[in-house]
């Protein structure tokens, strides 16, 4: 216990109540008083209440006026002694405050100015009976009795720099439930020593402030987008899907487009949309020449019941290298592999794709595509719908609707929509379809093995679910580390709109 704490307790003991700590302990700052009081209060030695008030002190000029009278009185007395005083001489004869004195003496009607610009005493003024209002006010203030003084007057005195405002904190102290002149030390924490010696049994402990947050932990974190990716992976795994080797960003025109029945003049193959590669420049043709001839025939003249696109198909377009525009390029290669040993198969990938797009809040030149491929015998469009419902239900998305759409490599094609409670509208959440027969039969897959495919971007559902407005805040170097650090666990099945 500090000496000051003891002093407070003794005074309290003597007085039974301390009505003003300012009066009882005038030399101690209010911060020091408060800290001593809090400490004693924690021990239930006392209780206190705090009173904030405003006080005024005289400035040096103000003090001077209280002692010797105001400038206006003193100037009037000087003019009385001299008889007349040239206005231009006021400062030299009276001093720095001459102008102030002159103005206020005029205002009080004590002096006048004659034609020669001289100051004279007004008629009937008795210098010994001047009422020195400024001095009287300051005297009152110096005695601490300013409650009777009008606020405007106080403000004026402040403006004239005669008084200075001071905030004051005072305390009223009364005895607490466990008042005594002694103090036991309160322990802040249980230590290993106390436990070993058993000392904790006799010690008193400081109360905790539970209205607090604790110290933030030092921790690493996984990236929010990768956390969502992991959710998708687990959904695929739970439904028996094997991950495709999608770690191949550079693709040939053949696998990225021709194999998927995208004609060579399709806008998707434009320089505007696709990143072409200048080094290395030219790919090899696919090893499976029978397959390539089938692809050529399907494009050029039609085959496998298709009339084809009927144009001159060029190998050189197949050999152009691109950054893949979709992971379906890998799916095509996997389906071609499947043709060696056709059987029901489930495959998925979640990986990066590239589009030569202008970057804005919803578009980046690279993003992630989630893609599923399901091959099975004699399956129907109804199976695709049901499977999509099961798949999206796993992430808490139900009540799907399906809209006819067009993709070059699937027929029928269906856009998948779900009702978004937060946005209050139907939003497109993915695209799906059955791969075209002429595409699959070119690979050598049997006619009755149908293949369903569906895809969605990883970023879009993440942005919708977690209300991220700008894709650049989710992927790339502009993502804030605070966002990564503070992002909660991703649970796609968690309903954020209940």
């Amino acid at each position: 216990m500090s000496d000051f704490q003891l002093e407070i307790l003794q005074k309290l003991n003597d007085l039974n109540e301390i009505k003003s700590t300012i009066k009882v302990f005038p030399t101690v700052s209010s911060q020091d008083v408060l800290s001593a009081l809090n400490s004693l209060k924690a021990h239930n030695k006392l209780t206190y209440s705090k009173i904030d008030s405003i006080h005024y002190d005289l400035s040096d000029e103000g003090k001077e006026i209280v002692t010797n009278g105001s400038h206006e009185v003193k100037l009037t007395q000087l003019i009385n002694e001299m008889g007349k005083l040239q206005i231009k001489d006021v400062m030299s004869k009276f001093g720095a405050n001459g102008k102030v004195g002159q103005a206020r003496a005029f205002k009080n009607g004590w002096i006048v100015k004659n034609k020669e610009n001289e100051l004279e005493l007004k008629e009937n003024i008795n210098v010994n009976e001047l009422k020195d209002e400024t001095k009287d006010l300051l005297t009152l203030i110096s005695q601490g009795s300013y409650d009777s003084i009008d606020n405007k007057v106080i403000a004026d005195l402040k403006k004239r720099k005669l008084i200075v405002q001071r905030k004051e904190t005072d305390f009223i102290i009364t005895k607490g439930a466990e008042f005594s002149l002694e103090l036991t030390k309160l322990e802040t924490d249980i230590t290993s020593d106390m436990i070993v010696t058993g000392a904790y049994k006799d010690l008193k402990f400081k109360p905790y402030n539970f209205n607090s947050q604790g110290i933030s932990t030092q921790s690493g974190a996984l990236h929010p987008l990768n956390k969502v990716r992991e959710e998708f992976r687990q959904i695929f795994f739970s439904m028996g899907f094997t991950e495709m080797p999608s770690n191949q960003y550079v693709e040939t025109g053949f696998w990225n487009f021709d194999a998927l029945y995208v004609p060579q003049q399709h806008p998707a193959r434009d320089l505007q949309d696709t990143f072409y590669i200048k080094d290395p420049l030219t790919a090899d043709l696919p090893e499976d020449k029978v397959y390539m001839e089938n692809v050529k025939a399907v494009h050029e003249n039609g085959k496998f019941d298709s009339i084809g696109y009927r144009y001159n198909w060029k190998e050189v377009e197949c050999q152009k290298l691109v950054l893949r525009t979709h992971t379906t390029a890998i799916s095509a290669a996997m389906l071609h592999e499947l043709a060696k040993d056709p059987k029901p198969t489930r495959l998925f990938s979640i990986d990066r794709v590239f589009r030569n797009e202008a970057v804005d809040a919803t578009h980046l030149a690279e993003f992630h595509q989630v893609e599923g491929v399901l091959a099975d015998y004699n399956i129907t469009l109804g199976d695709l719908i049901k499977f999509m419902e099961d798949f999206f239900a796993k992430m808490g998305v139900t009540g799907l609707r399906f809209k006819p759409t067009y993709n070059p490599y699937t027929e029928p094609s269906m856009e998948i929509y779900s009702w978004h409670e937060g946005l209050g509208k139907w939003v497109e959440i993915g695209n799906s379809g059955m791969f075209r027969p002429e595409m699959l039969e070119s690979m050598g897959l049997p006619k009755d093995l149908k293949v369903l495919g569906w895809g969605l971007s990883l970023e879009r559902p993440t942005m919708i679910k977690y209300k991220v407005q700008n894709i650049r805040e989710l992927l790339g170097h502009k993502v804030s580390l605070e966002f990564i650090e503070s992002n909660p666990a991703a649970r796609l099945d968690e309903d954020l709109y209940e």
Partner: protein
Amino acid sequence: MPTVSVNKQQLFDLLGKNYANDEFDELCFQFGIELDEDTTEEALKAGEEPELKIEIGANRYDLLCIEGIAQSLNEYLGRSETPKYKLTKPTTRLYVDQATEQIRPYAAAAILRNISFNEKSYASFISLQDKLHSNLCRNRTLVAMGTHNLDATTGPFHYRALPPKDIKFVPLNQTKEFDAAELMEFYKQPEQKNNLGRFVHIIENSPVYPVIMDSSDVVCSLPPIINSEHTKISVDTRNVFIEITATDKTKAEVVLDQLVAMFSRYCGDEFTVEPVEIVSEHNGQSRITPNFAERKMNVSIAYINAALGLEQSADEIIACLKKLSLHATASSEDKDILEVSIPITRPDILHPCDIMEDAAIGYGYDNLPKTEKLSNANFIASPLPINKISDIFRVASAQASWLEVMALTLCSHDENFKFLKTEDDNTKAVKLANPKTLEYQVVRTTLLPGILKTVKENRKHSLPIKVFETGDVVFKNDALERKAYNERHWGAIYTGKNSGFEIIQGLLGKIMQTLRTPWVADFGAASPSRGYWIEQDDSLKTYFPGRGAKVMFRAKEGAEPQQVGHLGVLHPEVMNNFDIPYAASYVELNAEVFL
């Protein structure tokens, strides 16, 4: 997908109903087009007529104008029959010169007689040509069309290829005569750059330019650039001569079919087109265009039912197909076969699966039975092995209090080389041919540029900044079909007031320990078994001299040690190049060696 703007009231008039917004949205949804935007609110403010912006499938060229959208929706709703397009006898010819083979070998033509345009239908006619030019015609490279006032010309017509100086005419909307060479220069001026200037490149460098002339050698058009002022059409034109020139014959016919199918409805004889005899002996393309010979495709009822999970009768399927303008009749020879007649507006039908899809749309996707015929085979799922290794790196790094970042794969050449004080020997990095910005010139060969850019963007974050990334870099390899391959890397940085080399070294140890790889003292000499060590390597210019090392890995006892990565104190110039005012240490490993 193309978007078509149509006058809202005009469309609703054609559909015979003023649809509420939700109701029209629903109709579009079921049919497979998308109502993108309804401009009613803005239009009312601006005192304009409201428009609907409708997104259509990229293969439905017949829906690129209001006439086609209304026709198809009316048929879908059962309010209208598919038009029966008729041809009259040809009255004129288009002679194709062999010289056109050098530049644009194919031509087609047709005439619309006694047409009555009004302002809206005339605007739609012009707009459809624009839409076709930019979509199917690939900005006029594959096909270009010209429409002319037939009455200002006299047939027969000629399609020639002539030296530019020999083609002289007053082009559309100009007053002065140009020769074709002058005209190319004119359209290359800055004010034409985004207009006709866009098409100059298609013929500019050819010694001969394509030209359509009438019997008196009056120029009708200079395809694919501009028509002549002389043959200009207007809302009052009564007889329209359509000429098509192309490098792709199939698309030329498709374009001509759509133009006449959509606008023959305004002819004196509704849906009747006058064909033109094309004389093109040199390439065997003499014929009469357009060709309205019925196109048929057979489709199996069993196939449609199996694909849709239904057991519909022939008549039920026929009714569904009719809604999508496909007219089927049961085959007299085979009870399972429907003979489907495909109108000229549906060139998108390539395979019976396209008919099957329309049968599904006609039935309604929402009405299809949700079936579960999927195989019950027990599918054994497995992750991609390298992704499993990645996850070990990721989890261990996060546990060690590093933050995961995901930088972009593409970066500038400087970021991948010069800024890291390394040289490009042209053996490793894949380079892009056509990036829109300098930000994307190469595919990264190291994770470092992305990590440094992330640190730069977050340099206000409290120190130290500790981030890692596990991602793919790409290297060239000429032996592969795709000439390049991905390699999975892991990189981590410590950035602060001090370089923190020992901290990065410690993180490497933690990762190696997680991967069952102990440190081997004395640079690998202390033990012959699996393990790692680091060796100073002054050839690593990204690091401060004397503070860079390679990471050596011995997979098992007796195995040859291999370099699997590097670490060190980043060179201050590297930090300056990325505007980071701190010191840093970095480690990067090739994750594939742990497979």
